[in-house]
C-alpha cells in the first residue's frame, strides 16, 4: 500500500541528507521534504576555506547536485527558514509565513558558532564563520584585508587561520585553551599548537585575553590584558558551536543546549527525532546527555534516525574511534571526520 507519510527533515547537512536517502530507500512512495534556510545545495563545510581562498568553486563545494533529489523524488526546499514548530498539531511554521504539516519530523538543523561570555562584551566587533552564507558575506573582506585576529577556541579556527596565512595575510591567534571546543586543550596540547602555528609565522597570544576593542577608520584597535596592541581588519571568533534549536523552544519538545533525544534519537514526541550537531543524546551508561559533534556523527545519526522513524528501533552507538592529529597534537576521536 502506498505510504501516506510525509517526512519533513529540517536541515540540509550530512544528518538531513543521509536520513533522506534512507527514508527514500525504504519508503519509495512517501513524500519527503528537506528544508534548509540556506540557498546552497548540500555542501562540504570543511571546504569553505578553499572556497574563500578561491582554489575551488561552488561546484566542488557541493556534495551532490539538484538532479539527485529530483531522481529520488525528494523535495528540496532551499532558502526557507523554520520559525517554529508545533509538534502537537504536527505543523511547521516557516518564516516566509507558510504552514507545513508532517507525519514524521527529523530535526537536523546543525549548530552555529557561539559567543562565549568571556568575549560577549565585544560581540559587535566579532565575525563568525560556519556556513556558505558566511563565506559569501565575508569573502570580499577577507580577500581585500591585510591583518586578522582569530580568537581560537575550536578545531575550525585552525583551518581558518591556515587559510588566512596561505592567502598571505598577517594573522594573530589568541588561544583560549580552557574554553576550547569540543574538548579542553591540555597544557601540552596548547604548547604544541603554539609551536606549530608560530613556526609558520602566526603570532600566538597565549595566557592572554581581550581588554578592549574599538572600531576606527583604520580597522579594529585591540588591546589585550597583557598590553599587546594592534589594529586588525577583522576579528574572527571560533569558540565552539551551539545547536540551532530556537524554532523548537517553547514548542513542547524537550530541549537543553540541544534537542534532547534518547539513545534512539527520539524526542519526547513519538514522531519527532533529532540528529547531528543539534542533538543532545542520552547515554544510558553514564546517565547523562552528550552533544553530537562532527560530520561523521551527523551522517551516522541521520541514517539511524531515519531507520527509527521507519520503525527499526536502533540504538545509537558512537562510531569507531580513530586518531585525529591537529596542529601538532593527537586526540582519539570517534566524531571528527579527518577530511585532510
Amino acid at each position, binding site marked *: 500500500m502506498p505510504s501516506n507519510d510525509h517526512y519533513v527533515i529540517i536541515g540540509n547537512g550530512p544528518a538531513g541528507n543521509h536520513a533522506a536517502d534512507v527514508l527514500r530507500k525504504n519508503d519509495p512512495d512517501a513524500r519527503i521534504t528537506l528544508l534548509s534556510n540556506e*540557498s546552497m*545545495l548540500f555542501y562540504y563545510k570543511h571546504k569553505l576555506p578553499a572556497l574563500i581562498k578561491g582554489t575551488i568553486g561552488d561546484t566542488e563545494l557541493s556534495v551532490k547536485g*539538484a538532479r539527485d*533529489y529530483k531522481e529520488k523524488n525528494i523535495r*528540496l*526546499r*532551499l*532558502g*526557507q527558514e523554520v520559525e517554529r514548530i508545533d509538534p502537537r498539531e504536527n505543523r511547521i*511554521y*516557516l*518564516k*516566509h*509565513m*507558510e*504552514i*507545513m*504539516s508532517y507525519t514524521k519530523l527529523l530535526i537536523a538543523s546543525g549548530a552555529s558558532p557561539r559567543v562565549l561570555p568571556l568575549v560577549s562584551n565585544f560581540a559587535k566587533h566579532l565575525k563568525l564563520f560556519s556556513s556558505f*552564507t558566511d563565506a*559569501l*558575506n565575508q569573502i570580499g573582506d577577507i580577500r581585500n584585508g591585510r591583518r586578522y585576529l582569530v580568537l581560537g577556541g575550536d578545531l575550525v579556527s585552525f583551518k581558518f587561520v591556515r587559510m588566512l596565512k596561505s592567502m598571505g595575510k598577517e594573522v594573530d591567534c589568541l588561544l583560549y585553551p580552557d574554553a576550547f571546543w569540543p574538548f579542553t586543550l591540555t597544557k601540552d596540547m596548547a604548547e604544541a599548537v603554539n609551536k606549530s602555528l608560530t613556526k609558520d609565522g602566526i603570532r600566538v597570544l597565549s595566557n592572554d585575553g581581550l581588554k578592549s576593542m574599538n572600531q576606527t577608520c583604520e580597522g579594529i584597535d585591540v588591546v589585550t590584558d597583557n598590553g599587546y596592541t594592534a589594529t586588525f581588519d577583522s576579528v574572527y571568533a571560533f569558540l565552539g558551536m551551539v545547536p540551532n534549536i530556537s524554532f523548537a523552544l517553547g514548542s513542547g519538545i524537550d530541549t537543553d543546549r540541544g534537542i534532547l533525544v534518547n539513545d534512539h534519537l527520539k524526542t519526547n514526541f513519538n514522531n519527532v527525532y533529532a540528529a547531528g550537531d543539534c542533538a543532545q543524546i542520552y547515554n544510558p551508561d553514564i546517565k547523562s546527555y552528550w552533544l553530537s559533534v562532527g560530520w561523521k556523527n551527523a551522517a551516522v545519526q541521520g541514517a539511524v534516525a531515519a531507520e527509527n522513524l521507519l520503525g527499526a528501533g536502533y540504538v545509537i552507538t558512537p562510531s569507531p574511534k580513530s586518531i585525529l592529529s591537529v596542529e601538532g597534537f593527537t586526540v582519539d576521536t570517534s566524531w571528527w571526520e579527518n577530511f585532510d
Partner: protein
Amino acid sequence: MSRLDLVVEICGSAGEGTISAGEILSRFMSEEGYDIMSFDSYPAEIRGFGKCVAHTRISRGGVLTPGKFADVLIALNDIHSIGQLSVLKEKGVLIYDNKPARYHLEDQSVVGWLEPGMTPYGIPLTELSIKASGNARARNMVALGAFSALFGIDRDAFTESIRRRYGKKQQAVIDSNVNSFLEGYAWTLENVRKMDSFRFDGMSAEVKRDQLIINGNEATAMGALAAGLHLYAGYPITPATKIMEIMSKELPKRGGIFLQTEDEISSIAHVIGAGFAGERAMTGTSGPGFCLMSEFTGLAVMAEVPAVIVDSQRGGPSTGMPTKHEQSDLNIALYGGSGDSPRVVIAPTCVEECYQAAVLALYIAEKYQTLVILLLDFFLSNSIKNMDPPTAPETKYLNAHIVPDAEALSDYKRFRITENGISPRTIPGTEGGMFFATGLEHDERGKPVYDTVSHTRMTEKRFRKHKGIATEIPAPEVSGYEGDADIGVVAWGSSAGAAREAVEYANEKGIKAACFSSLFISPFPESELKLFSKRCRKILVPEMNYSGQFANMIARYLERPMERLNLVTGLPMASEDILKKIEEIEYL
C-alpha cells in the same frame, strides 16, 4: 555581465498594480538609455482576480523579442506566481513577500516551489507598503524599490521618474508611491545580502527622456493619424480595441470622425463610404470581426474604393482565444471573400514598423484605390517598445489621390483601362465626374456588364495595380550569415523578430544561418526571396499557426522542400524555439 540583457517578470492578480509596476520599470529603464521590450498578459475578463504578468526585457544593444524565460520574477501574488516559476531561468532570482497579511497554506507560497540554484529574496512587501503609505496597495512600488536596491539601480533617478509618471496626480498619490519605493529600497539595502550575479553596472551615460514607449496598436494609430486619417469606424474587439480608443480621442481633436458602429459589417461599410467620398478611412478588428467584414472587402476591390482594415490576429477559429497570440488569419487576409479579389497585405514585424505600415497602408489604398489589410497580432498589438519619436511621413504619402484632369473629365470614365491599372478618380459632387459604383462587374463608366471581354479586362486591370505596388514596397530585411548559408529562415509578421534573434544566436554558435522577412506579404518580393533561397541549403519557415499558411504561400514561389515550425501555443514565437529547430536541422 558583459552584455546586459535582463528579463524581469512581475506577476500578480488583476488590480494589484502589476502592469503599472511593469510600465514604470520599463519607462525608467528606457529613460536611462536601455532598450526595452515589454509584453504583458492579463485575464480575458475585463477586471477580476485573474493572473497578470508584466514581462519586460531590458537590454543594451537592441531587443528583438521579449525573451521566453525570465531572470527575475517579482511575485506580488503567490498562487499566480507559482505557475510562473516555470519560466524562471535556472539561476533566476525571486523577489517575494515574506510577510504577507496571513499565513499561506502548505504549498501556496511561491518560495516553497523554488528550484535549487535559484535565489530567493524575501522582502516584507505588505508590511513596508503599509508603513510607507498606510495601506498594502503600494506593494508593487516596494517591490520596485527592492529590485532597484538589489540590482544597483540609481535610487534618485528612479524616484524622479516615478514623480514624473504620477506628475498630474494628487500629491498624496505621488508621495505614497515614492515613499513605498524608497522604503523597499532602504529596507533591502539594509537587510538583504546580494547572492546572485546580476547587476546594472552604472547607468547608461546617454539618458533619453524623449523616447516613446508604445505598443504596436499605439504605433499603428500614430502612423494612421500622421498619414492624415479622417475617419475611423470600428467595433471593440481584443486585441485591436486600443486603436479604437486612441482614435476616439484623437480624431475629433483633429476635425476627423470617429464612429463606434453597431458591428463590424457596419464598420467596413463606413470605411468604404468615406473612401468613396475621398477621405482616408480605416477600421480595426480581429479575426472574428474580419470574417464579418470579408463580404465587403470584395466591394472595395470591385468598386475600386480605398479601404484599410487592421486585423490584429488572435487565437482562432471563431471567438477562439481573445487574449492569446496566433498568426492564423493570413489565409483569410490573402484569400477571404468571393471572386478573384487582389488585395494588399502588410504584416509589420515590430512595433516601429507598425507606424510605417499604417502610413503605407493609407497611402497605397488611396493611390491604388484598393483594399489594404494590415495584419497585426496579439503580441505586436500588446508588446511595448521604446523608440525614438518617428519622423513625419514625407508629403508624397499624405496625398496620393489621383484625380482626373480636365480632358479626362470631358468624357469621364471612372474605370478607364490604364496601363498601371489606376484610373483617375473623382469624388462625388465633382462636376462632370459622375459615375456608377456598385459591386457588380462593370464597364469603364461603371455600368454593370457581364460580358466576357469586360470581365477579363477589368479583372486584369485590378490585378495590374499590384505590379505598381510591388515597385513601392520596402526591400525585405535580410540578416545573419551573408554567404552560402546552411539554413535560411523565412519569417513573417511578429515572428520575424524571434527569427532574426535565433539566427544571431545560431551564428554565434557557428551555424551559418540567415533570415529573410518582408513587410509586404501581398505583393511579395518574390524575386528577392528566390535569390535568398538559392544561397540557402535548407529553408525553415516558423510561424504561429498550425497549417503553415505562410509556408504554403511561399511554396509556390520556391518550389522546394521546406522545413516548418508551426506552433499554436497562444504565446509569441520565441527565438529559443526557432534556434532549437535550427540546431535540429543543422545537426540531423
